[in-house]
């Protein structure tokens, strides 16, 4: 016997009622005047913990009960669906499965964040036509020119020299039309960056900072590495993937945890851009080896850049936060470890 409330439907009346079932699977209820309704015609709501169950009758009536065990028994005996439909509940009801689920979830989330998102976005970035990268970068230089950058103040001759150097370095087989743009900017100081469409911007301060043209070449190659690796598109895809992942998982999460979601996102996305810096460093280093330039020059010029940003009067404390973001060259000794190892591998002691 099943105790609960019978709700006729179309109306909010409910009556306390008891359902009975016979061996043929016919349901009876004296209070609701049900006389042998086939149990198989009823829609039974799935079991969710100990939440109440609803037996929906064909005409729109509903029977609400908290006697989950009896409902389960009836379903098993008269519907012969012992496993289907209740599988999720079986997972939930077993503490061991739950522990495994928690562990797998944590591991999977960690793995996916560390390797999955970067790998997937790399595949996607190369699978997408190259025009996507190009079109995504359009308008960025105009925007920067309007707000951040001014025309280069280097002599016309020096500019020609640099253009020639760049033309010598730029590979033609990566599908991008590489362009060198020289600019001056008080705000970002000595800096270099690449836009996803293949535009590479160097600032006057950087040209002055570099000890020699080999160092300028090193940074040019580093930026070419970003373009060739489609890092702009990959970065965007990574951030979008990360955000989507969090929306999907936290679709359940309460707003109280939003801070807890944002902070790790920031950390993870910083670590992604760090990985791409390393990739560009290694690209530049091997390109330098091929062109018989000592990759040590790359290490030196990167150190110089770091030093310049630490010492400059427009000190990093003031505008370091977003400057770091813009230059996308996270500073710190850790970054140079892979490059050092690469160089050390070239000259076995």
């Amino acid at each position, binding site marked *: 016997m099943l105790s609960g409330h019978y709700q006729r439907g179309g*109306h*909010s009346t409910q009556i306390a009622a008891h359902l009975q079932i016979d061996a043929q699977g016919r349901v009876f209820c004296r209070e609701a005047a049900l006389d042998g309704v086939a149990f198989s015609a009823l829609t039974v709501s799935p079991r*969710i913990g100990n939440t109440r169950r609803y037996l929906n009758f064909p005409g729109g009536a509903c029977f609400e009960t908290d006697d989950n065990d009896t409902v389960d028994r009836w379903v098993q005996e008269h519907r012969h669906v012992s496993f289907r439909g209740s599988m999720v509940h079986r997972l939930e009801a077993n503490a061991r499965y739950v522990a495994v689920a928690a562990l797998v979830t944590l591991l999977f989330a960690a793995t996916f964040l560390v390797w999955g998102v970067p790998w997937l976005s790399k595949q996607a970035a190369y699978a997408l036509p190259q025009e996507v990268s190009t079109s995504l970068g359009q308008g960025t230089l105009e925007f920067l020119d309007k707000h951040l950058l001014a025309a280069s103040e280097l002599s016309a001759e020096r500019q020609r020299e640099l253009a020639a150097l760049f033309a010598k370095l730029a590979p033609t087989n990566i599908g991008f039309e590489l362009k060198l743009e020289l600019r001056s900017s008080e705000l970002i100081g000595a800096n270099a960056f690449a836009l996803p469409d293949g535009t590479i911007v160097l600032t006057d301060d950087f040209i002055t900072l570099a000890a020699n043209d080999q160092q300028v070449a090193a940074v040019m190659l580093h930026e070419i590495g970003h373009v060739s690796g489609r890092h702009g598109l990959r970065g965007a895809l990574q951030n979008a993937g990360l955000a989507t992942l969090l929306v*999907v998982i936290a679709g359940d999460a309460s707003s109280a945890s939003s801070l807890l979601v944002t902070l790790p996102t920031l950390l993870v996305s910083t670590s992604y851009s760090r990985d791409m810096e390393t990739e560009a460093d290694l690209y530049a280093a091997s390109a330098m080896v091929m062109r018989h330039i000592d990759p040590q020059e790359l290490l030196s010029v990167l150190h110089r850049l770091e030093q310049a940003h630490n010492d400059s009067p427009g000190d990093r404390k003031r505008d370091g936060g977003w400057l770091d973001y813009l230059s996308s060259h996270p500073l710190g000794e850790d970054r140079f470890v892979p490059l050092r190892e690469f160089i050390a591998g070239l000259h076995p002691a």
Partner: protein
Amino acid sequence: MTVSNPVATEPQDPQTSRNLAFGFTGNGWEYFKIWIVNVLLTILTLGIYSAWAKVRTQQYFYGNTLLDNASFRYTAKPMTILKGRLVAVAAFVAFSLAQEFAPKVALAMIVAFLLVMPAIIVRAMAFKLGNSVHRNVAFGFRYNYKQAYAVFMAPTLALIALVVVFGFGAQMLSEGDQGAAAAGIGIAVLAYFLGLPFFNYLASKFYVNNSRYGDSSFNYMGGAGGFYKLYGMTILLGLGVILLLSVVIGVIGGESLAMLNAAKESGGEVPPGQMMMMLMSQGGLMLAIVPAYMLIFAYFEAKRFNLVYGSSVLADHYGFSARLRTGGLAWLYLSNLVIVVLTLGLGIAWAKVRAARYHLNNLEFVAAEDLDRFAAAQQEKISALGDEIGEVFDLGVGI
């Protein structure tokens, strides 16, 4: 005929009204098991299961919400949610990409989004309420697009109008003085902020007045005054808390400085013990800012919840009595934060259950008549797109 007619319009006798408690019967461990299996299956199915997970979660929370020993039921179909969710996630990805690479496109998307937002809100509410059932009678939400546009576009339009009128007005009157124009715009923005409580009132009224249970309407009985009081008191509380904190920080900071200076002058070093004390008191203050913020937030949320529920009436004879307390809610926020942090996020399940229980334990339904006299209304099928967009873009639809 001299027989009096005592029935038709006689006012309700307050003696006969009953206070029916809401209750929540779920528990943290039980919901944790449901949640973690949901997350696992969502991951294993590359997100597809999330629609089923949402339904299961909603069914858990609805089913454990009791009023007069009858539960609530969530009747949305996972497939409907999946369709809406796919579109919403696609839009979200497109927007994230545009933000990174095509700021102009992103801007256009924001404008387009603002233009359709009122319609999204209506559809989201209709989906939510249409899929909420109590005693086998569904709730519902009127498709009142006209009012939605009036209520949700009004603040933006008012701001634009104010800026234009005051900004240009001041500029014209002063014959092109930029300072006067800036002052004019300042006045416009101030006027806009003075209007915010009123806009908030309009939105709450819109949500309540267009909701129905069966074919019976909800009605918002309060005025704008309650919202002005709510905002005013919250600002006063905020100022008080900030003042208190800055006094304490000033005193402790001053002492530390004095100690350091004294140590420097005497040529000695600050004793490590004292140094520790100084650092700890400063760290403690930084930590105090979080509860202070939560206290202000809790005050606002508790009073707003009480105000909106307390002013809502169903079919003229039924109302609510909401008694959230600032202290209780602040404690809930703070303890939930601690639980979630200490468990690396796994405690979200407990946090959600505790929040539901706290709110429902402090809410009562005041019924002047029986609950079994509500008739169901015609139901129509509705897509989940509005609801999903509202969720993915975190619109916070609803009261």
